[in-house]
């Protein structure tokens, strides 16, 4: 696990975002055990306080849960997963729209371009 952090967003926010992506992409399965706070700090080379903060945020958002003294796990709630997926996709689309807005591109052209590039990239990955 390796994240390249940017310097202007809070590190804990970037860690949470990373987890969301891992959950939505299926790299973390529902109910899967996740590293302890200390292990996470070590793996990501971040301050243990930051790891703690990220886990607290995720716990409050229902993305992870901890039962007693056991290791924390990814939520088992499929609704949370669906909401998360919607959140990430809409966020990405919002950013795309904001980015192309100044260019004033017609919607059909944009959609055609997205389809073309997306398929190209998918082929590239296989």
């Amino acid at each position: 696990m390796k994240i390249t952090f940017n310097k202007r967003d809070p590190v804990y926010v970037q860690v949470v975002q990373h987890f969301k992506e891992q959950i939505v992409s299926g790299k973390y399965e529902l109910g899967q055990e996740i590293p302890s706070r200390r292990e996470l700090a070590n793996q990501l080379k971040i301050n243990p306080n930051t790891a703690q903060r990220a886990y607290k945020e995720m716990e409050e958002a229902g993305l992870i849960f901890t039962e007693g003294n056991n290791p924390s796990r990814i939520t088992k709630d499929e609704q949370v997963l669906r909401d998360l997926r919607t959140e990430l996709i809409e966020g990405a689309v919002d950013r795309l729209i904001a980015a192309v807005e100044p260019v004033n591109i017609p919607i059909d052209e944009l959609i055609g371009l997205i389809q073309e590039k997306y398929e190209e990239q998918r082929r590239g990955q296989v």
Partner: protein
Amino acid sequence: MIEVKNVTKKFGRKKVLQGVSFTANKGEITCLIGVNGVGKTTILNGIVNLTPMSSGEILIDGEKLTKETYEKVAFIPDAITMLPHMRIEEAMQFMQDFYNSWNNERAEELLQFFKLKKEDRISSLSKGNVAKANLLLGLALDVDYLLMDEPFSGIDIFSREQIADVFTSHLVEDRGVIITTHEINDIEHIIDKVVLLDDGIVFKEFETEEMREVEGKSVVDVMREVYRG
């Protein structure tokens, strides 16, 4: 908590510190930043009373420094204080002889972490490895607070990374750390708090995550505003 309260220091007529106040919490990494000559090292020296301050007060967990405090606070200077002909294991023995808080188990762990050989003589080590051996001698003390003077200066990037990794490990966790530096890039992500010094005063004191969250600024952004603005 280490509290530095309105501390001043004069060397002859030269006022090096002109009323410095800040706090450093246990379990957090506090970074004193400033260009050369602003008094960073003098402050660390003041906390462990190697240099008496001209006025002001320094409290560690609410108490003034006593002989016993030296078992609670470790100062790691920017250059190793052991004799060059000593082997690392001899330097470790030396520390064990003088400090009750010496933790040999942790020292062994640090040897592995830094990939140092204890039979090596300090004089034969590279600069980066001398810096690591120096840190080892301080980090192996079971103390609540660690003061590190310029742990990153003048060493290669991989040694710097290795040293930075210590801060994210259990070897430092839960202790209070104050480090001085003017090279912030390697450690922006791992520090909790920044104290910016200039001309013998504290220009700004802030929490790094809060600064990123509220103002969207990196530590370097803030430094640029303060030092060049």
